[in-house]
């Protein structure tokens, strides 16, 4: 099939640029912004923090390197909640949590100066020292 010249040189690049614009956020690219942490808030009230992969073509989004709040009143820290990395549960889930989009309430970008981002950084540092 022969594609006419203006389709090949104008329409296809325009569609490609629009598709890239829809799926690629330049501010998310590591050389520009460093790490990007998203908060995925669910309808049931649970919140997960991590690296979001969402291409819009699927019914699910993928969250990697996931952290979440856990009730810590039974622990000895005097804190009501603790930030826990997902993966240490009994079923030992692998990295890459697939969340159904219809169970999501909202998606927000986490500020790197926030308490959550600092807690994640501190926990990573502890894990690095332990290894």
């Amino acid at each position: 099939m022969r594609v006419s010249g203006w389709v090949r040189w104008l329409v296809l690049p325009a569609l490609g640029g629009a598709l890239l614009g829809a799926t690629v956020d330049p501010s998310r690219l590591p050389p520009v912004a460093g790490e990007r942490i998203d908060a995925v808030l669910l309808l049931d009230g649970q919140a997960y923090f991590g690296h979001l992969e969402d291409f819009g073509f699927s019914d699910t989004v993928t969250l990697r390197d996931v952290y979440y709040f856990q009730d810590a009143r039974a622990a000895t820290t005097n804190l009501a909640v603790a930030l826990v990395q997902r993966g240490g549960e009994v079923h030992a889930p692998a990295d890459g949590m697939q969340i159904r989009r219809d169970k999501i309430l909202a998606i927000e970008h986490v500020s790197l100066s926030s308490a959550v981002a600092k807690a994640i950084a501190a926990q990573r540092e502890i894990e690095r020292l332990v290894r």
Partner: protein
Amino acid sequence: MRRADAAPLAEGLGWRAARVGIAIAVLVLAFVFARWWDFAIPRVGAQHYQAVFLENGQTWFGHYRDRIGPYAAMDTVFYVQTKSSQDPDVPATSQLIKRGSELHAPDPQVLIPKTAIRFIEDLRDDSPIATYMDAQR
């Protein structure tokens, strides 16, 4: 190669390079336009602020933008926080909180899956909530 053959060849290469340049320029322009547009659907006659009623029972107030795709967006979100007292005789108090001061200090823009939205209403300009949000901006 003879000089007579080389001239059309150079002309052909120049034309091809020009077309590649145009294609790259179109791709970049389309990319920039898509990022700027954010696939927002213009709402003619809509008020500046909307109330978005969510599936979990919460209501968020702010500037709502309908978008092509699975997500809508809201900018500068406020929500009502109700504090109840331990004393049963003291009535619960409600206050309007600007989203952003939570533990994860979220950016002003929030993406909301359209499946999580029950309905949306415009706020009148003289609405107390709209007036408060204007004052807080």
